[in-house]
């Protein structure tokens, strides 16, 4: 019998400090047993438990794309016991990885559609995974127009800044990067909250699906904008967070009604959420 609680051993291969406040770091992991990489076959939108012996486990969205081989990447905000410890670990350290867990974004449904990606703050990780995945030459033709609205409080708090600049330069993805405010006179992108920029830049819900990932306040104000644009609740896709332990729908912790965020989610459509208790 397979033991779903046993993590794959991994080695930290690279650590990148992402934001100027140094609260977000990206960790690149390499599997100690190469065969484990195949067993860890994932799809953008899924998450994993980062497992640190002596400290515990934390559920984190996978930031790398399955098209990127040889490593798995996570961007972790420094918050509690495990994430703070992880921030102090160094390249070469051994830890564990358990997953992939949860369901992905609805890739079958997204085929042939215009995809609108809306992200805020440090919740851009699985959205990064999704963008890299969609921009792969073998996948790009599966989608129509790809638009991205991504915002942070200030320029220094945006994740993946090099990649954002690369995507800006491409003509097969429409980037709308924004910050809440900045006094940087060289700032060449938008200034304004994510819902406002969404209203300005996204002009149609026609044959479109929206993937939204961000802090609760952003989601709260983006939702009416999308509905006004004509997105039906079935085509507004959200990724939720919840305190978790097992990650496989057994320990009973992360339920919303009769759904477990870890196993039945973390990805839900707004249509689904409307039929679930608002306890998240």
């Amino acid at each position, binding site marked *: 019998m397979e033991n779903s609680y046993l993590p794959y*051993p991994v080695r930290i291969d690279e650590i990148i400090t992402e934001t100027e406040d140094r609260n977000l770091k990206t960790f690149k992991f390499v599997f100690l047993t190469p065969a484990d990489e195949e067993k860890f076959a994932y799809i953008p939108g899924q998450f994993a438990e980062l497992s640190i012996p002596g400290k515990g*486990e934390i559920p984190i969205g996978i930031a790398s794309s399955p098209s990127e081989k040889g490593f798995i990447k996570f961007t972790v905000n420094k918050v509690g016991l495990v994430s703070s410890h992880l921030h102090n670990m160094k390249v070469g350290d*051994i830890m564990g990885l358990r997953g992939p867990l949860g369901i992905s974004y609805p890739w079958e449904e997204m085929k042939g559609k215009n995809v609108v990606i809306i992200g805020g703050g440090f919740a851009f990780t699985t959205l990064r995974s999704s963008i890299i995945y969609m921009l792969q030459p073998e996948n790009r033709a599966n989608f129509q127009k790809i638009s991205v609205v991504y915002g942070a409080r200030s320029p220094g708090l945006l994740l993946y800044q090099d990649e954002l600049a690369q995507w800006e330069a491409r003509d097969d993805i429409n980037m709308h990067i924004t910050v809440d405010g900045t006094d940087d006179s060289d700032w060449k992108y938008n200034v304004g909250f994510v819902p406002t920029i969404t209203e300005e830049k996204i002009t149609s819900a026609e044959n479109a699906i929206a993937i939204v990932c961000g802090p609760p306040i952003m989601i709260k104000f983006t939702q009416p904008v999308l509905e006004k644009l004509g997105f039906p609740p079935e085509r507004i896709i959200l990724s939720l967070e919840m305190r978790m332990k097992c990650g496989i729908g057994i320990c009973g912790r992360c339920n919303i009604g009769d759904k477990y965020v870890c196993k039945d989610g973390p990805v839900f459509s707004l249509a689904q959420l409307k039929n679930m208790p608002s306890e*998240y």
Partner: protein
Amino acid sequence: MTDKIYKKEEWLASLTDLKEQYKLYVPVKDGDYHNIKPLEEGTKPDFDYQNSRLSPKSAIFPQSERMFEYSLDENDPDHGILQESEKDYRIQVLAGIRPCDAHAMEIVKRNFDTPEYRDYWWVKHRETTILIGLGCNEPCSTCFCTEVGGDPFGEKELDILLHDLGEQYLARGLTDQGIEFLKKAGGTEADKKTLKQAAELAAKAREKIRTKVSTDKLKDKVLNELFDAPFWEEIGFSCLNCGTCTYLCPTCWCFDIQDEVHGKKGDRMRNWDSCMFPLFTYHGSGHNPRDQKYKRVRQRFMHKLKYYVDKYQNGVQCSGCGRCVRYCPVNIDIRQVARLMNKF
């Protein structure tokens, strides 16, 4: 099916003999109450009891269980790599548990042993456990097994069911494992008269359960409407969030996972947890979706009486043992809550 008769002292002597072959657990008087404990040298089994204070769920799902161990010594080539802890998986026999507690194992199995994931330790413990039930001639005033799909002489999950006939036990072997155990335990074949007597006693016991708890309409209720029902704050008003109900409940399965470090060695443990505790859902960010106690009380009852019902289409997550009713310090009564929900 094999039906055997044992004089009571003969039954106890057989169990004592069999403790070399199996890990045996029996009801034992433990202070003012009974619990299911290992049959060791000097243990006095006492089958003359109503029910154990703690449910026997801990035999399959220990209150605290080591999952993995690891070294934190950087000179150790395996440091930081979790290893499965060695465990004693010899067959264990729980002799004399009540049918409601066996029924509870069927209820929780739907959570631990699913088509997608099988809980490694729960399944292993369950597969190496023989359950011997003891039918209830005298159900408690708080018992309501018959209202939630059980019976004082219910056979669900049991390998053997004992009927207490005064001087002797009728032991009914219900599975191959149970029949094999009875073969080893001696006894004499039961005659028709004894079987008839046992059936009559069981029917009488059934009649003694007077509590009526309707759960038939729960499945047709709209989940969000029940969630928003006006009675939750009132039900939760007196709750202390002490967690007694969840710890005593044979069908409560929530657990926590924690790492414990002792010097250069560490263990990953899982421990029973409770939805009654505020920390249960407390996010790292400080946000807590169940930040008020009535929300936690609502979670417990909605889980047992609505979420479980909808998810598995197989009744409620309650076996009617009545422990939470008996031991709640502020008299919150699941039977009353079920009535409110069912008629809402």
